[in-house]
């Protein structure tokens, strides 16, 4: 999805930092109890911040899933997750992932495969709570899988167009992402609204309209612009993928954001999001804007 020559320029550092905080979760920053064993013999039993001041130390691992669960319960409140790793499994995992690399493969596909490969080591790399592929490393906080995001893009975004995503907080643009897609749905540009070029004060609706106009003034075609209030954005991201349509519909209906969709079938497409019920109809050929 990410073009090999993607332009990442004129990014506002404050919005970018906020985007990272909203959309990413780093396992490295989590409180973890790490157990490394070799064919059941524990070689490492250590908490990332508490060191060895943890409960339930074990010398052997017979059932890594049970061990992870028991340790998590024994250290409730002190750990975000427990990880139980078998040495050989971890080495094998990284060898497999690296050997799968292909120079023409997109970054996001390589990363997706890397995490999916954890499923091949279900007993060797174990986390609790949650599966390793959804717990370790750097995780998107989108509430949707890679393929679901990819499908949504193909459904709601026109080829060779621009998407604007924004979050408003205290009548100010707190975060924005402006993504250009090419004909093949590869992202060719990633940037944010530039506060030195466009006024970033205003309600979600005002920001959505102004950002769209600002982007289009540069000759781009915007096919989707969505600006939500901060709490609404959190709710939308947290919603499970099969409920996102309904959640978004409710948020928009309650005045928590503003959505612009271009395209002849836009309202129908939006309606195809599970649970989404547009409160404003649009005739084919019209632009669909759901605002408060």
């Amino acid at each position, binding site marked *: 999805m990410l073009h090999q020559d993607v332009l990442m*320029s004129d990014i506002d550092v404050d919005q970018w930092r906020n985007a990272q905080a909203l959309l990413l979760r780093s396992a490295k920053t989590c409180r973890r109890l790490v157990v490394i064993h070799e064919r059941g013999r524990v070689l490492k039993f250590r908490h990332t911040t508490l060191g060895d001041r943890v409960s339930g130390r074990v010398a052997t691992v017979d059932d890594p899933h049970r061990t992870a669960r028991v340790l998590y319960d024994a250290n409730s409140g002190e750990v975000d997750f427990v990880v139980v790793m078998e040495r050989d499994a971890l080495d094998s995992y*990284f060898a497999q992932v690296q050997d799968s690399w292909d*120079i023409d493969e997109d970054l996001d596909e390589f990363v997706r495969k890397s995490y999916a490969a954890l499923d091949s080591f279900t007993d060797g790399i174990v986390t609790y709570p949650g599966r390793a592929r959804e717990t370790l490393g750097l995780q998107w906080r989108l509430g949707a899988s890679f393929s679901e995001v990819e499908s949504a893009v193909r459904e709601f975004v026109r080829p060779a167009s621009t998407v604007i995503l924004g979050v408003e907080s205290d009548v100010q643009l707190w975060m924005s992402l402006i993504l250009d897609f090419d004909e093949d749905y590869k992202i060719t540009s990633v940037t944010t609204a530039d506060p030195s070029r466009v006024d970033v004060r205003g309600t979600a609706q005002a920001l959505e309209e102004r950002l769209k106009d600002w982007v289009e003034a540069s000759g781009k075609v915007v096919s989707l612009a969505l600006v939500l209030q901060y709490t609404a954005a959190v709710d939308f991201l947290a919603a499970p993928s099969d409920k996102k349509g309904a959640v978004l519909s409710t948020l928009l209906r309650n005045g928590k954001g503003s959505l612009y969709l271009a395209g002849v079938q836009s309202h129908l497409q939006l309606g195809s999001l599970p649970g989404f019920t547009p409160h404003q109809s649009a005739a084919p050929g019209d632009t669909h804007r759901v605002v408060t």
Partner: protein
Amino acid sequence: MGFTMISIYIPWEIHEIEKGRFDFGQINQSNDIDAFLSLCRKLGFKIVVRPGPQINSELTWFGYPKRILANERLWARSARGSKVILTQVPKPVPALNYASEEFLDETALWYDAICSILAKHAYPNGGVVAAQVDNEMAYFFGINAYASDYSDESVAAYRTFVFSKYGGLTGVNAAYSTTISNSDELQPPRRFDAASYRDIPWYADWAEYRERYLVTSMGRLGDMMRERGLSGIALFHNYPHPLGPGGAASGFTTPFNIMGLEKHLDFVGFDIYARKELYAHVKTVATYVVGTSRYPYIPEFIAGVWPWYLNPGDLDDEEFVTKAALMHGIKGFSRYMLVERDRWLDSPIRRDGRERAEKVEMFARANAMLVAGKFVNKRLVADVLLLANREYDRLEAASVLVSFPGDFLETPSGFSEYAGALTVSEDTLGFDQPVQLVKSAWFTAFEQALSGGGYGFVLSDTELDETLWQHRKVVVVTTLDYLDNRVQKALLDFAARGGTVVIGPKAPVLDSLMHPCTLLHDVLVKSDGNASGSRVAEHGAGHVVLVSELDDVPQAVSAACSLPGLSRVVVNDTALDVALHRDVDDATSFVIFVANPTAQPIAAEVTIGHRIGAVHELWDQRDLSTDGKTIADIVPAFSIHVYRCVTDAERTP
């Protein structure tokens, strides 16, 4: 902003049209390096060039032509024999094999082309005064000891290294307690499986070889540059920031080796990209470079960040980190990047040439302070040399239980690429404590005792040539069960000439091959305990101090540093950190940095043991009144004050 030099990358990736054919403006005018260098000179700038072969520079292919990365004969290999992939944006790239002759031959084609242009502009005929050899070469951030490089060429080089170190087959067998009959039978370790301390040499040598791999390859590239007309300018290298988020506590030595690489290049530094919360890391990097390199230089010094830097900082971070590096003695730096571009954000100058006024003002102010304050004449006052124990760092690196590649995003392992308490074996290997773990606690205790006591010190490691120790009055180093014979002897020689050596927690009884070696132990065996919880032995004109308990470290360090003539800056709050700089031309003039690396303001009171006359804060340009003894000031959260003061004594406080 007051900058005097321009530093630029020159990407092989961009200039190569096809193998052996390059565009330097014939096709794309913006590729005209010759014209750019001429313009820089015309405008009065000196120039630093960075032609790779690797430059990263956030380019898609890390600076290499794609065909180089696609050539599997040039790939580095992991201990498992797999490819070694760095997950970077926008394309993951394979680590390359810098032991490969084919790779060097390919690089030679690039160097033939670019160096012919650079040589024309080399000082004194032109403005190019320095060239960076490659870039942040650390196995493509595959710091982990078993991540790479196990390519055939690298393993062959490893065997050559080991056989050279031990003088041949007999020596190798003696060192490793093996019975191999030729070099091909020697295999490098591919995971940590040591069962006894007698296995340590084999593992430690792999870690040492990994240093050598980087030194050798950078040295060869440097020689290739010299052969192509750059012999008259300074050549340098930039190791990557060793203590970034999640970095190690003390393992900033291996696989890096500043002193080893400076035998081939003119100087070597570490890049710094850190937020203010990582003050301790910045201090470690700066004081290590200052204590080790012949020119304490930060080749890349934060001015904006790359987009995939997680949780990027802001102007306040950059101001704080700038002052922190200067505080600890850095003498030169290159801002990266002053001018924003694709895949870089928040530079002082935007892509379209407009300025970010606050950033421009801060960077200009820093430069103005350095000029007005005559920092070129300032020298960090550091009577104490704190040595990291490179032998133990090598063991720590080699005793890692898991192996994983570098990752610009975040490896799914969740571990730092630097070995540490989460990843290192806890096996004691027959000692009473695991050296690879205990050494960090002791290094930290020594460092904190020196900082807390207000004693000026620099960092280096046990590989630092002992002739360079003589600038110091006290040498402090962690010692456990074993220590290289050369280092033991050097410590005793230092003491014999009148210095004070502080070691702990043990007087070693073995050398690095685990043979009996009791040089330090023999000196200390007849010593008596003292009130500071340490044993002190007179040796020649100096002393050897052994402190055995962690809790006794502050007292023992304080006692060892209470010698006449040692400088000390006393502060009223241990959360503050201080550094004193003297002026080489004016014995009564000093600069005192006072850092508050906490989130709360501190009412600081600083004394240097002498009457203080006029005090002037250089950054904010304000005068302070004093009572003649104390500098009293409110130091806001995460800020550093820079005081110039005049004393009434013509000697170091």
